[in-house]
């Protein structure tokens, strides 16, 4: 069911284009969610929220005019459209007849989270707390959080697009702190998806807590990380954050068009070894970054961004696609009705290669094994990046030996991408939140084990 009638949508678009513009769009959203946490073995920070609102956009030439309002009443929408119309002026586009709003669900939600009693979610967190604490006497703190949310969106634009989508997401995060003598280490694990409550049921939540505790306990024996250039093996799943940051962002068309990306002008060029295949796929069933349509109403798709080591596509929203004379790749996303859509990744991953992770490691005499990251930052213009390693190990004589603490990976995107010399056949997707231009959207990151021939590890052991 659309959040607004087609007839009202058409009137709002007409009003927005009253004083001119090439394109108009109204984005309506209704969202509700529940979040709770356990800390010090006590369930707390329980919160519910609900919001309804709309954003109206007019594009004229290279300029976007945008206004957003809380509320979905006719008066609210008219007000937003009027504000935008007052700013935009010039030649005027005709509003095309709206298509029939069609839902494109990609995932059956087996158990709607809103239908599960909240007390059951509190129980889930208590089970996580118990499981993590039972993992070892050195577990000192356990924090776990559960969040569920449903977003219903309706998009209508002057080119006739009229589309609806309903997105239900569930996410669990567990953080465990372990202490031994003076050492304090943290383990973190998440489980999330464009899924219902079934994702975290049947022991899945407890396994997540167990893994978080396992990481913290393992790291207790860690030595300071080495410093210097060496081969680096990046783990599967969350290791994909590295690719997300060092390549994904650089392929977003807004950076490309401004010349603010090291991948500008690299379309069709060889940037990686010929065995490297990578995708952005907004349609992977049940994944965290999956949606039926993007936030401009374009159906999501699977886009090959690197094929045989060559750049094969950038990631587009409508505005940037129009500028390059191509079709949107369904990557126009926004945090909420309060934000303008911009090119964003959905689920981004390096496709699995050949061989096992062990084989990949066995060729390394002395190197670093980065299993998971606490976060990272990249300057798309220069390509310089930095990643904080949350779980890392030393590789000696082809084997993973000691855990290391305090490591940072530092380098340059094109250089590091070009040095990927092996991708293993294992594969896993993980959940994350990606920030850009002040907007936070859910993204999936994934890969199998990946080896980078040489990268600088910034450790504390100088």
């Amino acid at each position, binding site marked *: 069911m659309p959040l607004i009638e087609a007839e009202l949508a058409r009137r709002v678009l007409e009003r927005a284009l009253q004083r001119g513009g090439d394109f108009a769009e109204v984005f309506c959203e209704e969202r509700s969610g*529940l979040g*709770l946490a356990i800390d*010090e073995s*006590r*369930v*707390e920070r*329980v*919160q*519910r*929220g*609900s*919001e*309804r*609102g709309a954003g109206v956009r007019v594009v004229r*030439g*290279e*300029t*976007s*005019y*945008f*206004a*957003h309002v*809380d*509320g979905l009443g006719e008066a609210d929408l008219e007000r937003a459209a009027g*504000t935008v119309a007052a*700013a935009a002026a010039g030649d005027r586009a005709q509003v095309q007849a709206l298509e029939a709003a069609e839902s494109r669900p990609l995932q059956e939600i087996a158990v709607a989270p809103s239908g599960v009693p*909240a007390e059951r*979610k*509190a129980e889930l967190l208590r089970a996580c707390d118990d499981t993590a604490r039972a993992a070892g006497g050195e577990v*000192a*703190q356990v924090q776990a959080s559960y969040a569920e949310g449903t977003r219903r969106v309706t998009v209508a634009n002057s080119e006739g697009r009229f589309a609806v989508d309903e997105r239900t997401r569930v996410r669990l995060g567990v953080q465990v*702190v372990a202490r031994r003598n003076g050492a*304090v*280490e943290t383990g973190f694990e998440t489980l999330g998806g464009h899924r219902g409550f079934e994702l975290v049921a049947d022991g899945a939540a407890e396994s997540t807590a167990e893994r978080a505790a396992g990481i913290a306990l393992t790291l207790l024996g860690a030595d300071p990380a080495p*410093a*210097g250039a060496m081969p680096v093996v990046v783990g599967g799943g969350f290791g994909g954050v590295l690719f997300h940051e060092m390549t994904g962002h650089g392929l977003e068309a807004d950076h490309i068009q*401004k*010349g603010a990306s090291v991948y500008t002008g690299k379309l069709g060029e060889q940037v990686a070894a010929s065995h490297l295949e990578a995708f952005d796929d907004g349609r992977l069933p049940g994944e965290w970054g999956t949606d039926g349509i993007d936030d401009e109403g374009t159906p999501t798709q699977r886009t090959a961004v690197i094929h045989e080591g060559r750049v094969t596509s950038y990631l587009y929203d409508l505005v940037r696609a129009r500028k390059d004379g191509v079709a949107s790749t369904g990557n126009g996303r926004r945090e909420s009705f*309060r934000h*303008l859509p911009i090119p964003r990744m959905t689920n981004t991953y390096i496709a699995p290669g050949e061989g096992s992770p062990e084989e990949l490691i066995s060729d390394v005499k002395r190197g670093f094994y980065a299993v998971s*990251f*606490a*976060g990272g*930052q990249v*300057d798309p*213009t*220069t390509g*310089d990046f*930095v990643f*904080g390693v949350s779980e890392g190990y030393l590789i000696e004589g082809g084997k993973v030996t000691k855990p290391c*603490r*305090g490591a*940072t990976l*530092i380098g*340059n995107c094109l250089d590091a991408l070009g040095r990927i010399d092996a991708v293993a056949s294992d594969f896993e997707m993980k959940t994350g939140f990606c920030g850009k231009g002040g907007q936070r959207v859910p993204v999936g990151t994934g890969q199998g084990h990946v080896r980078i021939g040489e990268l*600088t590890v*910034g*450790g*504390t052991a*100088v």
Partner: protein
Amino acid sequence: MSDELARIAQRAVESALAAGAGDAEAYVQDSVGREIRVFDGQVESLTEAGERGVGVRCWIDHRAGYAYGTELGEEGLAGIGRDAVDTARIADADEFAAAPSADGAAAPEIPGLHDPSLAGWTTERKIELAKVIERAAREADERVVGVETAVYVDEEQRVAIASSTGLAGAFEATSAYAYTQAIAEDGGDKQTGLGFGMGRSPEGLDPEEVGREAAERAATLLGARKPSSRTCPVVLDPTVAASFVGFIGGTLCADAVQRGRSPFAGRLGEVVASPALTVTDHATDPAGLNSSPFDAEGTPRGQTPLIQAGELVAYLHDSYTARRQQAQGAAGARTTANASRAGYRSPPSVSTSNLIVATGAKGFEELLAEAGDGVYVTDVAGLHSGVNPVSGTFSVGATGRLIEGGRLAAPADEFTIASDLQSMLTSITAAASEARWVPFGGSISTPALLLGEMAVAGS
């Protein structure tokens, strides 16, 4: 307008009480804002933002709950009240969870918090301001080849709060800021630099200076190389010093301390830093963008010295952490009015307001001379993923310049600086004599800082 918000807050409190809450508090926020992005002499986007909502916190027998919403009519508020009560019933009881009580103190007046001159600026003038920034960046240095958007943002915000325990208040505030990122290129090397400015209205912004700073930061780094790995004196420029000080401020929040997540837990009254360091949380400084007459739970604000000449003298509290501290034997513990929230969508939690690092006697040049041979750091990346908040150890990516013979020398990038917060604080040997406001990771006024020794990892 404020009367209307106060009425909404009052009705929200009543709806939570009617739904079964023992106590309730409501925070209503109404803001209008504008964001202008300019690229290549053209407006890239112009956003008019209107936002209005309420957050309701309630307590039932020491169980706390929270709900928020944007439907502010009778029916909407009744639903939010019911949601808040539902959430409280799921929470576990916490003996310290209770409504904050009013102690009768009046909230201070903060001169200039609401600058009426903002209303006098037309959209066209604001667009011109953003264009001036872009032009200034391009014209400041011929090696600047591009500007990745010049951004201007302003906001006018109204807040009202009410509670069943008699706390009530309202205020209005304005803010404006601008920033840009310049791209410089020379001989195949590319570097970026950020310029920014902030104030209570566009009157307080200097667009030429914002553009010039971005250009200078980018152009200065051209030709940067990895410095050699070593342990040496390090000078942090105010933007970098602010990032670290903001991080340290977080570890001095009582919430982190009480839950065993601060390397400074149990160290009140101890010397934790060199005598050169004095840090104060100042919630009513008119120049601080996080200033307000009362905090997010209605307590009148003031200032709290945190580190005085190296001694840790206080943690930051809200009413919950103060109550908890009292129960642990600190009878005199009181809220420092540091309950903060990102907006009506998030419940209050303890946070810094504006942090002020005291300036020292030496000028910046003297700081460099004292460093002798070392590294001047002008930007760090990955601070929030690179610092372990529990143990305080960190390793972050950095860019800047070498210091040779007491003067700035060649640019340096792709290196890391590593230490732990405690060692870093004790190794501060001097603070420069001029401070600057930095709006990243909080609202912080700090001078450049000289550290006697830090591990630098490069080539």
